[in-house]
């Protein structure tokens, strides 16, 4: 039963509706104005020849879509990001889980190490990319990585400018791991701390050996929900890669064709000098569909939203 102070009216249905809209309204309005309207407009533009205009008149049907799917630069960028995702998702997953397990076991200074590993997540992608590009992995003799190689008599490496071997992947991957592993570690830590100690005690009583056996049969199954969430976030994040690629590899004259994720290509097509907004919009719609299909497929594969999940 609701208790009210003497002389005050209970919170009525009318006021609840009002306060709901006061709090939710601005965000809903922002969502509609800045997400759904541009999204719908982008789909509209994708059916028009829209060079240097957002109010086109020349309807071209699916021409932009077919041209985009035949465009080697775009399909090449899709392959690039697929390879990138296939590598970066499991690597970040394993690294952040390992960090979480390590920090979770610490009895002393746990808060300190948790903060140390999480701190890079607060760093801007742009700043981190410039540090990686200009100080650590520049291609001249006074770059940090080349200085270290020089101690061992090795030749200088132009990290971001050579394609054989593709050293630029080392730069991109280390940057992303440094920026992201701490954030996912926190998610895993939260998951680990929700596991009841009695499960480990029961496992010990049943004779499970600490280490791999406990990890495999107790910890990992208990982290299932967290693992699914982390994997989904990692995949979406990898598909949306832009900042570090753009800042590491672009220059005033453009962007090299290797290591070009789709968003960078679409940025140059639609918003750069090309200003081909219809063609770029078609690419954006294709990319959004690819992300949606992969995400839904992945959720199905994990059984997310299935009977087992509903029972939890």
């Amino acid at each position, binding site marked *: 039963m609701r208790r009210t102070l003497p002389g005050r009216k209970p919170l009525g249905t*009318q006021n609840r*509706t*009002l306060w709901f*809209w006061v709090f939710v309204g*601005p965000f809903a309005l922002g969502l509609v104005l800045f997400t759904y309207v541009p999204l719908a407009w982008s789909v509209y533009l994708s059916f028009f020849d829209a*060079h*240097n*205009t*957002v109010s086109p008149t020349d309807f071209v049907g699916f021409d932009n879509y077919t041209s985009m799917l035949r465009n*080697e*630069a775009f399909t090449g960028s899709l392959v690039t990001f697929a390879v990138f995702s296939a590598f970066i998702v499991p690597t970040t997953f394993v690294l952040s889980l390992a960090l979480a397990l390590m920090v979770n076991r610490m009895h002393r200074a746990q808060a300190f190490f948790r903060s140390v590993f999480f701190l890079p997540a607060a760093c801007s992608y742009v700043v981190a990319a410039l540090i990686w590009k*200009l100080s650590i*992995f*520049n*291609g*001249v*003799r006074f*770059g940090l990585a080349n200085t270290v190689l020089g101690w061992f008599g090795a030749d200088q*490496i*132009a*990290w*971001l*400018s*050579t*394609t*054989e071997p593709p050293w630029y992947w080392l730069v991109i991957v280390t940057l992303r791991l440094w920026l992201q592993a701490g954030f996912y570690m926190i998610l895993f830590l939260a998951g680990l701390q929700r596991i009841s100690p009695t499960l480990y005690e029961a496992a010990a009583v049943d004779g499970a050996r600490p280490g791999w056996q406990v990890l495999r049969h107790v910890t990992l199954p208990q982290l299932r929900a967290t693992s699914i969430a982390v994997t989904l976030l990692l995949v979406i994040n990898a598909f949306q890669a832009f900042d570090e690629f753009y800042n590491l590899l672009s*220059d*005033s*004259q*453009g962007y*090299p*064709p*290797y290591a070009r994720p789709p968003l960078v290509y679409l940025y*140059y097509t639609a*918003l*750069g*000098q*090309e*200003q*081909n907004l219809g063609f770029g919009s078609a690419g954006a719609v294709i990319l959004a569909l690819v992300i949606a299909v992969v995400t839904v497929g992945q959720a199905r594969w994990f059984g997310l939203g299935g009977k087992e999940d509903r029972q939890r």
Partner: protein
Amino acid sequence: MTISRRTLLGTGAALGLLTACGSNTGRGGGGSGGKGPRLAQWYHQYGEAGTEQAVKRYAAAYEKADVQVQWRPGNYDEQTAAALLTDSGPDVFEVNGPSLDQIRKGQVVDLTDLFDGVKDDFDPAVLAPKTYDGKIWAIPQVVDMHLLYYRKSLLDDAGVEPPRSLAALVDAAKALTTKKVKGLFLGNDGGAGALGITPLYAAGLESVTEDGEVGFDDPAAARALGRLRQLYADKSLLLGAPSDWSDPSAFTQELTAMQWCGLWALPAVREALGDDFGVLALPPEGSGGRPALPVGSYGAAVNARSDHKEEAKDFLKWLWIDRTEYQEDFALSYGFHIPARLSLAKKADKLKEGPAEDAVRYSTEYGYAQPLLWTPASRTAYQDALSRIIKSGANPESELRSVMREVRAELARVKKKR
């Protein structure tokens, strides 16, 4: 649901605050101090100290309008392209173009009548890319160009002559490469972006002909691009420098013996190296080749969506056609550029000595301007192919065939009736 007056007022105030957060373009309905309408004028951020103060001084001296200068750092070309799609763009703006699509979509105003009586005094090389359908769409401000800088003492020590052919450039770069100094710097991408189509012109070809056809359907094109691959394969190229080709730091800090850079870098190079440097155009490829270097120009244009188009044209005529002393000051007092007006370029003392004199001569003898028909889509396809040739050793002939297909499709698009 009943909305009270207080709720309505609060919501109105919040929405008012939101709308007040729009971007300030400098445009307004009327000027202050009785100077006529307010005009917003945009410039990209120049690196040379004093340029911003100079253009604000010119604007303040204009009597018939209140000109508000905006100095815009960042990706200026993208900013202006996006602003031209809206009603909140500038009235007059500096443009690295305008592009063919900007002209065809009617985003800029025809300025042909401003050139009455003075057209012949503008450098034809930079006026040509501002001209389409017989009309002029921007006023060239200054002439800029790219050059090959070389360090005389390093060439002398290595017994190398300034290269007179692309093959000699490959040999020279190899001979000049040591453990500490590389022979040549063409940009961190190996030259795909900075050199662009210049090797085609060095081979005696063109990107797009005057008739609007592909201008490099010739084996000489593949040979010229193959030279760039050779430079990369010989490990003669500096790659991964902290500052890219447009900054002379790699050259002045002795990371490289030769560098492709802009005329704008000449004062900084002279300050660092004294007379120990010379300049060249990109040397020719083969018997049909010729030295080549690109010349280009930022232009001043009027936004077709401006409410004050006539006033904006009057202002541009006053600034970039009538007031020649400002043009001279803008070109020569801060950075280092050639005035776009031939009469001003001829009398500029700074351009009559040493490497600067050579540069001016090269610009008239060997300079080419990027044609309007060489659109961004063609440029991207070509640069991607060039990058694959240089860095991955892709076959130049097949890469160029693929580029030609894309360029022909793009030319067919822009030739279509609007």
